């Protein structure tokens, strides 16, 4: 077992998509050890004024897995992102990436080590074209040094490689038709895609996506989910913040739950979502109910009627969507017949 940990993963020729070995080294608990961690954070704290925005005792991110970071608004997810990537400095603690300590390392060096992030508020260079945005992500371009910038012969070759790499990614992300447009002309969802594609230009080992699905339309979400899954096949590790539980369920191998700056739970998605601490802190007791259709609302109404704690004030005060609940009881049956 110990021998296996020391062998580099690439040498074993494992298909990361179907790798079912356990993620945790021993038992699953908040702050547990992983079989093969890529990021290890210890006692990382960050306070703003008197508020402890992040207070993580111990956290390991498993390599070659997709890890979701979830939690209510203000739980410190984005702050943790900033701390891990060097955009913010913690008040205390140690954290490392592939065994290299990241304390005091500036953000651009963190990115060069292979840990690339996106931002919750999408950052695209509006007055550069989509293609130029992508090229900006390209690494090891000698023409980015002032001493070589004047001579196209010294960077033209690498530029062609970068452009080819960018074209492949743009096609994957369905942005190839837009490549000569200014990035500012893209819609919010397209900007999310561009930012993600651009971060992949760096060829990172760990991609950190801050709410990659916010504002992306459902049809695109599906293909984006596939892209993220495929990153794993290419040997990358993904850590993402997301509020969409369906997405978390679909693609995450591991879920870390934060609340008030602390890690309150972690584990495989199915287990974490049953965890009472997670349900209380984040999901809510009725998170399985779909409020999008009448059935769901009725179901919720029935649940709420049964739940004594939910009744506050007068009897009728809290009834949701009264018109939906009040429709004849035989209507659902009629509808079922129609379907049959």
């Amino acid at each position, binding site marked *: 077992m110990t021998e296996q940990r020391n062998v580099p993963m690439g040498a074993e020729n494992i298909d990361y998509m179907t790798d079912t070995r356990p993620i945790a080294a021993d038992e699953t608990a908040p702050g547990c050890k992983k079989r093969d961690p890529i990021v290890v954070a210890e006692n990382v704290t960050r306070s703003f004024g008197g508020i402890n925005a992040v207070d993580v005792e111990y956290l390991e991110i498993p390599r070659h897995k997709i890890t979701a970071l979830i939690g209510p608004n203000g739980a410190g997810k984005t702050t943790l992102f900033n701390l891990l990537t060097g955009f913010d400095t913690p008040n205390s603690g140690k954290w490392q990436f592939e065994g290299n300590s990241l304390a005091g390392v500036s953000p651009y060096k963190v*990115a060069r080590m292979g840990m*690339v992030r996106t*931002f919750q508020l999408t*950052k*695209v260079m509006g007055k550069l074209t989509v293609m130029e945005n992508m090229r900006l992500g390209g690494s090891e371009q000698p023409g980015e040094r002032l001493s070589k*910038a*004047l001579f*196209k012969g010294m*960077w033209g070759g690498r530029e062609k490689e970068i452009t080819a790499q960018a074209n492949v990614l743009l096609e994957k992300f369905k942005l190839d038709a837009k490549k000569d447009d200014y990035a500012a002309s893209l819609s919010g969802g397209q900007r999310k895609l561009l930012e993600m594609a651009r971060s992949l230009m760096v060829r990172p080992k760990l991609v950190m996506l801050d709410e990659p699905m916010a504002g992306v339309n459902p049809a695109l979400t599906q293909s984006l989910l596939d892209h993220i899954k495929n990153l794993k096949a290419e040997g990358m590790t993904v850590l993402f913040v997301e509020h969409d539980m369906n997405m978390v369920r679909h693609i995450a191998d591991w879920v870390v739950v934060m609340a008030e700056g602390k890690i309150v739970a972690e584990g495989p998605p199915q287990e974490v979502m049953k965890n009472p601490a997670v349900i209380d802190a984040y999901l809510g007791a009725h998170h399985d109910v779909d409020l999008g259709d009448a059935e769901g609302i009725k179901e919720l109404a029935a649940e709420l009627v049964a739940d004594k704690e939910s009744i506050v004030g007068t009897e009728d005060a809290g009834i949701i969507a009264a018109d939906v609940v009040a429709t004849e009881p035989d209507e659902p049956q009629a509808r079922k017949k129609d379907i049959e």
Partner: protein
Amino acid sequence: MDLGFIFSSAAGELFSPTTAAYALAALGLAVHFGYSGLLNFGQAGFMAVGAYGFAISTLTFGVPFFIGLLIAVVCSAIFALLLGIPTLRLRADYLAIVTIAAAEIVRYIVTTNQLTSVTGSANGLAAFEAGFYSMNPFPEGSYFGMNNRDFFIRVVGWGLVIICCTLVWLLMRSPWGRVLKGIREDENAVRSLGKNVYAYKMQALVIGGVLGALAGMVFTLPRGAVQPANYGTELTFFLYTCLLLGGLGTVLGPVVGAMIFWVVLSLTQGILYGLIESDAVTWLNTVQAGQLRYILVGVALMLLMIFRPQGVFGNKKELAFA
């Protein structure tokens, strides 16, 4: 009113050494503000450092022309580093505050009476251009109505403008320039892609500052004198006017902007003075007319910003999403 004279003197401004100096300094601002988003409000300070660096090293230390030039360039690079080290880690507005203050500090230092022996105080320095004109390859005579000295300084000044424009154009089409433009748009995004933003901003600040220093020398050589009053804050704002007239993120913009600026100034002066002399305008004296033309330049700039905000050469598409 002699319209022919008014137009010919306005046309003369097109290629005057002062226009070349403004074009160079505005090109430096284009590197700072247009391409990198660095809000430098102290370009006059960089010009002063260049002009005084050259004049003092020539007069006080008696160095040859090219050594003086080198000293001026090195001084402006050091000035840029001094300004950049504390401020480039901060937001853009801080650089604006620091540069405008630093430019004033330079002006006050060279005006100080205690330093009269070196800087000449408010009277400035003169008679340092002999080394330059001794290199004049043109024999005496008339060149397009100019004497050989005037012609030489124009050839050198505009030659320098062409060389610098080419260099800036080459730099800005390179991946290096792309990183700068990225920084202008969003420096954190560029950081997240593994680029050392601080180093890029410093390089841009130094390059633009060196262009400013060269401009200071081109400005001062034909005058044969350098005076602190020439390097006040308003000079920086004239340079920004040139830059905005021509177009922010362009190479030719600052050059054409400087030409427009000086032609408009010269035309309005000629026409206003002509009208006053011919008694067509009686409610204005020549002193007021001199000030009125700057008002007219301001109005022209406002009209331009309203109807063609991207400047003469700017790309309209870039502004559609501003």
